[in-house]
């Protein structure tokens, strides 16, 4: 036990003090800070930008131009000049664009935009949005409704309440709850992807380096290989958890500090919409995914001969991770597909996908439990399997495929 603690703390503190770890964590914190400060940062760059000036030539005789409201980005000015005169002004750069409003034969509003150069996407989208809103208001106006009636139509929202008739089945979640869970699950999947990807290579490089330099032989001649394996796995996991806590803690602090706590309110609303079951499962899946992949990384690290070979050895696992992540992304638009269902049970991808299913679909919780059991069994199985050849694998320096090396390692471990 003493040696485990010694090896564990050596593994943990060495990596914690490593410049690469400190720099990565700082960069990530800076990234989070940028995210929270984005409105301020973007205002630094855009404050000098003048709004786009759009002359509105209203030829409808129905005061359609009044439905266009100026904003920070676009300034609408009704004009009485002729279209030709305005076009000249555009060419000379006095105005940015001309919006010509007219009515077609059926009395529907028509809009034509004239500019010197093609518009940027954001300006284009904003103008389209304004035109659509103006068209709605114009149409309502044509129906001779009162302002209140018009307001009612514009702001009408309806929520669909579900009632499931099957006994024992829970009533469905609201779409609001589902989209919150989808968003959070996407974040969970992304964090798992990011963490596992970096810690997978950290642990395999660490073990490969120890094997390459023969330190491994000294260590396992003074303690059991299992102690070494576990100390490296838990040392790496502890480091991952440290980074996770620093990043999440930092993010929460920043959410409180920046923008007068606007993001903090958003976060608390978001969290309040999550159920306890979801939260527990998401944390369990996150932790177990880290454990599983760290173990895989340790085993792969013990099988390669040189640190340079680590990248190649972990490639298939990285691919597997990517598959899981992309399937999780596909679940953002539709979390009920068969693909998602299948991969939510596969231990290597379950962690990224199952949380989404728990939150964004109306599946029963026992399914998540089954997936979790699969994951735990895989970890136990992999651990027992790796114990069979770990001693041998750290002493094997032959070339060949991973399978060949495993066979050789099992033989050496006997």
């Amino acid at each position, binding site marked *: 036990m*003493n*040696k485990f603690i*010694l*090896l564990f703390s*050596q593994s943990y503190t*060495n990596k914690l003090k*490593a410049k690469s770890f400190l720099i990565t964590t700082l960069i990530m914190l800076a990234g989070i800070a940028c995210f929270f400060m984005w409105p301020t940062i973007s205002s630094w760059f855009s404050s000098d930008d003048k709004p786009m000036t759009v002359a509105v030539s209203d030829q409808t005789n129905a005061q359609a131009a009044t439905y266009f409201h100026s904003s920070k980005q676009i300034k609408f000015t009704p004009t009485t000049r002729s279209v030709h005169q305005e076009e000249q002004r555009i060419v000379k750069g006095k105005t940015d664009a001309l919006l010509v409003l007219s009515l077609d034969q059926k009395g529907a509003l028509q809009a034509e935009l004239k500019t010197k150069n093609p518009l940027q996407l954001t300006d284009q989208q904003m103008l389209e949005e304004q035109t659509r809103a103006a068209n709605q208001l114009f149409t309502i106006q044509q129906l001779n409704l009162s302002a209140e009636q018009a307001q009612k139509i514009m702001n009408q929202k309806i929520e669909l309440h579900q009632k499931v008739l099957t006994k024992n089945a829970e009533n469905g979640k609201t779409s609001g709850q589902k989209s919150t869970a989808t968003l959070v699950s996407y974040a969970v999947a992304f964090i798992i992807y990011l963490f596992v990807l970096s810690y997978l290579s950290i642990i395999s490089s660490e073990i490969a380096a120890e094997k390459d*330099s*023969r*330190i*491994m*032989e*000294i*260590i*396992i*001649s*003074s*303690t059991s290989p299992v102690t070494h394996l576990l100390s490296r796995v838990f040392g790496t996991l502890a480091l991952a958890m440290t980074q996770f806590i620093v990043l999440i803690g930092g993010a929460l602090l920043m959410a409180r500090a920046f923008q007068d706590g606007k993001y903090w309110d958003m976060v608390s609303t978001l969290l309040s919409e999550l159920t306890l079951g979801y939260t527990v499962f998401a944390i369990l899946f996150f932790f177990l995914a880290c454990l599983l992949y760290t173990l895989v990384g340790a085993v792969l690290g013990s099988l390669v001969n040189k640190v340079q070979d680590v990248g190649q050895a972990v490639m298939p696992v990285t691919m597997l991770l990517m598959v899981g992540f992309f399937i999780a992304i596909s679940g953002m638009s539709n979390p009920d597909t068969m693909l998602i269902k299948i991969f939510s049970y596969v231990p290597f991808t379950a962690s990224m996908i199952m949380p989404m299913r728990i939150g964004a679909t109306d599946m029963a919780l026992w399914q998540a439990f089954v997936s979790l059991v699969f994951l735990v069994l895989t970890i136990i199985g992999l651990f027992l399997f790796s114990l069979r050849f770990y*001693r041998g694998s750290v*002493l094997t320096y032959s070339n060949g495929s991973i399978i060949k090396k495993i066979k050789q390692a099992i*033989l*050496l471990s*006997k």
Partner: protein
Amino acid sequence: MTLSAEHLTKRFQNFLAVDHLSFKVEEGEIFGLIGQNGAGKTTTFRMILSLLAPTSGKINWRDHSIRGLERDQIGYLPEERGLYPKMPVEDQLMFFGQLRSWPKKVLKKEISEWLERFDLIEKRKVLTETLSKGNQQKVQLIASLIHKPRLLILDEPFSGLDPVNAGLLKDAVVSLKKEGTVIIFSSHRMDHVEELCDHICLLKKGKSLFSGAILDLKKQYGKINLTIRGPYDKTELAALPGVQSVTKEKEMYRLRLHHEHDARPIFQTLAKNGFIERFSLDYLSLEELFTRKVAGKGE
């Protein structure tokens, strides 16, 4: 008997790495395991370290299985540098000492003493990777013996060391021997083996060609190395009865005899011509014995 191997055999599938190897090492003795690359030295070391289990045969420590010997009582210096490159020298030694269950406080004192002894005290805070190869080897050696092991295994300890540092290392090994440590080492440098070892084992493809005292091995061939300096001719010397070969090195003639007893008649013949500046009869050097036995020459 402190350490003994009896019919130690290790087979990897179809490859026989160690074949019925037997040897004995007493307390306070240095034992040399000599052989070419792939002779089975590292495999033998790994079996002594309990990293590998023998296919058959056994290794005993004080008449009980070696597995009963506490791991903290063993010191091991692997052939390649087994050090953390990014760790300062002092931390490195502290780690290896603690790994053998030594308390930090005691280690601190030991580390200072050893660094002083090996002229590394100024490098204590320096990252190991910045040290020269020889200095790294010294750190590696300190790491393997800082916990005063009862059994010390040194795999090629002299590689990369200049004569001064090799001398320092030899002194350290000898002082450990005096304290009663059983030391096993392998080396390609036969002069070091000859100087340090009490007993040796010559390995060839996993098989022991000889195991015992160096002098006993030498006696097997007798004193057949004859060195002569005087006004002689190479062909004249080669024609003498009992002479196998003659080589001239500067002003010295080196004769290889068939048998030790051939030397006396040669002396008498040469003495007839007058004064002999030098006439010395020696055993074969360990280097020559190694070549004969292991490389199969002259057998």
